[in-house]
């Protein structure tokens, strides 16, 4: 089955049109939202430290039992030639857990929402797999899980964060590039880095206000990258060029 996002554009509309679920009430949504409003979870990715080993990619898959051939996070790797000098650019990608997520308002069933601690999640018991959120995400961070047929994406390993642990990708980041913490805590490492370093976000023009910040992010990589991905090529890349 071709699972390209273009494909979902058509079927999503059809699916929503025939869904029999009632939109959740406001109260029910609030009750489901969870998370402690005292925290605002965020990630800083220090691109200078990324070694391109894909430990994050693999740890996410193993921890979250991501369906085969799908990725919640990945390290896009580009070869860049400029002024006769070639170098490698590695860009870990994941859900940005935006302050203003464009994916949640388009959800017809309220399945995807932002917790009070900022983590954007999908309630797979409510999702109908319409794919609106997949379309709405400017970061191509979402996909339809081909096992559950519901929307899927990074949720900062919310089950680990709630257990007092770190997201799997952070825990195993070989270069120490992924830093996770609480933006509401001024003493946290992420707060200090956001304050002291020249942090940037992907697609700032979208107004999404991401909570994944990058150190060392060049302007030409903030949007869709036209360069040739080189050093690896996921098998789904042909179906979903957005992945790379």
């Amino acid at each position, binding site marked *: 089955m071709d699972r390209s996002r273009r494909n979902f554009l058509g079927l999503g509309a059809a699916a929503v049109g025939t869904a029999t679920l009632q939109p959740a009430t406001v109260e029910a949504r609030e009750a489901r939202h969870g998370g402690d409003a005292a925290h605002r979870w965020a990630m800083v990715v220090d691109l*200078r430290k990324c070694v391109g080993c894909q430990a994050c990619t693999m740890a996410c898959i*193993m921890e979250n039992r991501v369906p085969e051939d799908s990725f919640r996070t990945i390290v896009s790797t580009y070869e860049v030639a400029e002024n006769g000098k070639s170098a490698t650019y590695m860009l870990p990608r994941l859900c940005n857990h935006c302050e203003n997520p464009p994916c949640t308002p388009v959800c017809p069933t309220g399945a995807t929402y932002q917790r009070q601690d900022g983590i954007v999640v999908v309630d797979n018991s409510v999702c109908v*797999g319409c794919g609106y959120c997949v379309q709405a995400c400017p970061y191509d961070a979402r996909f339809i899980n081909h*096992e559950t047929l519901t929307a899927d994406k990074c949720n900062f390993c919310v089950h680990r964060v709630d257990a007092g642990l770190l997201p799997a990708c952070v825990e*195993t980041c070989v270069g120490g590039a992924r830093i996770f*913490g609480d933006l509401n805590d001024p003493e946290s*490492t992420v707060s200090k880095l956001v304050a002291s370093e020249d942090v940037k976000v992907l697609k700032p023009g979208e107004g999404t206000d991401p909570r994944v910040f990058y150190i060392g992010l060049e302007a030409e990589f903030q949007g869709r990258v036209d360069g*040739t991905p080189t050093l*690896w090529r996921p098998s789904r890349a042909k179906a979903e060029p957005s992945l790379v």
Partner: protein
Amino acid sequence: AGFAHTGRTMVKGAWAGEHPRDRISGNALSPEFTVDPKTGELAPTPGQIVANVTCQGCTTLCSVRVRVDAETNTVLRAVGNPYSPLSTDPFLPYETPVRDSLTSLSRFEEKGLKGRSTACGRGNAVLQMITSPMRITSPLKRVGPRGSGEWQKISLEQLVAEIAEGGDLFGEGPVEGLRALRDLETPIDPAAPEFGPKANQVGLIAPVNDGRDAFVRRFFNLAYGTINYVGHGSYCGGAYRSGSGAVFGDFKKMPHAKPDMQNAEFVLFIGTAPSNAGNPFKRQAALAGKYRTDGELNYVVVDPVLTNADNRATPGRTNWVPIRPGTDGALVMGMMGWMFDNGRIDTNYLAQPNGKVAEAAGEAGWCNATHLVIVEKGHPREGRMLRASDMGFVALEEKDRYGDGDAFVVIDASGAPAAHDVAGGAAALFHDGVVQTSVGPVAVKTSLALLREAAKARSIEDYSAICGVPVEVIAGLAEEFTSHGKKAAANTHGGMMAGNGFYNAFSVVTLNTLVGNLNWKGGTIFGNGRFPDSGEGPRYNLASFEGAVKPSGLPVSRPIPYEKSSEFKARKAAGKAYPASQPWYPNAPQLTTEYMTSALGEGYPYRLKALFFWNSNPVYGIPGMGLASVEKLKDPKVLPLVVSIDPFINETSAFADYIVPDTVMYESWGWTSAWGGVPTKLTSARWPVVDPRNDKTPDGEPVQMETFLIRLAKTLGLPGFGAGAIPDVDGNLHPLEKPEDWYLRGGANIAWLGKKPLPDASDDDIALSGIERILPRLKATLKEEEWRKVAFVLARGGRFENQSGGFVEDKAGHTFDKGLLVYNEALATSRNAMTGKRWTGTATFTPPAFADGTEMRSVHKAEDWPFELVSSKSVLISSLTILATRLRHLHPSNPVGLNVEDAARLGISTGDHIRLTTPGGAAEGVAIVRHGVMPGVIAVEHGFGHKELGARAHTIDGERQPEIAGIGAGVNLNDLGIADPTRKGVSVWLDPVAGSAVRQGLPARVEKLASA
């Protein structure tokens, strides 16, 4: 397809697919434990075990912590072991309770960010190999001819009986069993007694030491008595190791130092790249990321292929310099020439003739730069070091002359000759003249003068033309390398596997000698090795036993001088001592490369009658080996018995007569250490955290390598196995009936090393480390005073010296104290057996060549073969990890890299189908056009292009294994390796000195087959 999906959704509404476990987390695993972020209080998750063991995803063998679901006997995940420097920087003090080690990984006080302990991408995924459908779990015997892919399951009893006793095992005629072959008296060839006894006709090809090597050696070397036991070095990084051995003065153990990346200001990586490959892979990657960002580290990678190591986000800190394959020595000798011309060598270090004066001069080591070499033409000792006895400084008996007690000679500060070990200060660096010996004048030069001559043999412009690196870059690298005092280092590895790799590597390592950086913080460090498990330990003697054999004779790969052979004597008597029938390798260790060609194909020096492959795959891994060896391997008349000990059917074991299933990863025992690059001492533990999936013997023991060898030894009546095989320190004897009899006693040795034994593991350590699973075995095997100390080690995943032991002020805590060799006398006075010519004693540049010195490019000319193939490394896929489906999904194939200008000329675009052809074979692949490949080079990533491991379905007891196309995806460069046209019979191209396989710089052409 989309429409059908829509229909299903319409009928079922939400959850049209499978119901995940949790509405938010889906099918994510339950956390292994919880930690209260406010108090740090830890609560384990019932049913999950967290255990510190060792990863086998690559040869680094990192200590990792795995999560196991006890009920389903499944390894869920792997991350790093926070006690281990291979996974963590900084790592925990060894005495830390296990409970605190777990808390240190959590969000509590953000400890998990600071103490992050990691597994790499491959390490995260390779646990899939445990449950691979390709796994063999029963002993197999072939049905039909070798390689037919038809097998039957047999019992362990039948397996052992047939291998021991032989007989007409396959209806193809009688096969000698191991009992008949174990003749320790009768020579293989009475005319060549140096070959040793017939027992040497049994050989074993081993993998990297996965922590069980000593056990297998105990069987083959000490109990069975064969000399023919060989590892994988000759087709891994053998050229680097031999080149390093030339500097460190040991061609058998081949010591090597590594850059101290934590403290170095500049590191020059040539033919290796941190975070791409090399060893320790993950530690180097972690240090590169950390110290190029937060520290002082700058580095340059010189390689034909750009890798992740040159990270654009750290401008100025990382750089890539492209170079032609097999020309690294030209670059380095060009750098050296510049250094000599510009006075940029460390004369304070180089001028010290011995360790004592070096220390007084503030150095951390010394070398033989000032030692004199006899250069008098026709002198009987030409090429040898001038010795104290030549000068009449000492009177030695003739047998002791030129031995270790006969000092070298230097020109001291007064200008007079002096013994190197009594010289009281700096000596002459560049003496070139005549000294008066007790038998008259003789022409001599210092080692350093000879190196300078070698460097100045060509101009920097000539070197530049050879290697394709601009003159100003060569000079710039030399200037940068010599601008940081002792805080600069050069390193190399797999890129040296060229037809001149030995001298290229010797040159790279000599760069370090010229700046005197060994044993210095920020320079090159030697590491501190391991806490030995299997020696003559403080608790048990695992090194020897009653009746142990001292294997003798000539290994089939001939790691000794040809001049010691009967063949040499006979040829010399006949008037023509050279060439020998085949090359000899006095300056190398044992070589798998020769086991599989001359020994197998030519019966030279003698035939093997039984060959064991233990988790090794030379047919896949050695360039040209498929072409050279498969027809011979298939023929029982050439090689009567082939046994593979392996959990998978690979390109080599596909031709076995029998396959003994081995355990996979976290099912097995083993004691490993760091390969290098760690300043502190360590031994990592591996113990079975899950029950092996293999067949069980009637008494419940899993069928695996150890069970097989123990049963075989007992059947054959070999010493060293069974009851009373292991003596303890008091002389009492203990059994070797089960794997734990060996590995747990090795653990006791580790626990007792040092001034006092380790502390006991606490009940809490045991409860939180998963050790409970094997506690009955600890208690049944070990003494009452031992088991808790061994549990202390196992709970922490090994024994690790604390971080503070790594350095003492600005010097390494553990140093290499012998003198380094600028000039290697043993090398310089040994001869190429094919020509009778002597080798050069210093670093030098010599073009890639075949065994008799014929340059490769004079045979395979550039007009016919305009490209050169190189092997590059993946961070995910290796020869075996293609079996992990998650890795394949991320990295499904290896598109063949070529430079944009070459591609434009040939009309090739990314995605086009192309054919690669070499004099050894052809392969089809998909092109990827890159700026990051040197012009004229074709880059093929290692690990793909499998023909077995599941790419072809085998049939076992009439049942077809699955066949997975993805396992066969891509190209295997080794299928394109070439033979040595200067040798008789079957061969593969080897470095003439190191005997290492050549995979860098294979002559090739490329053509486009079809557009993308």
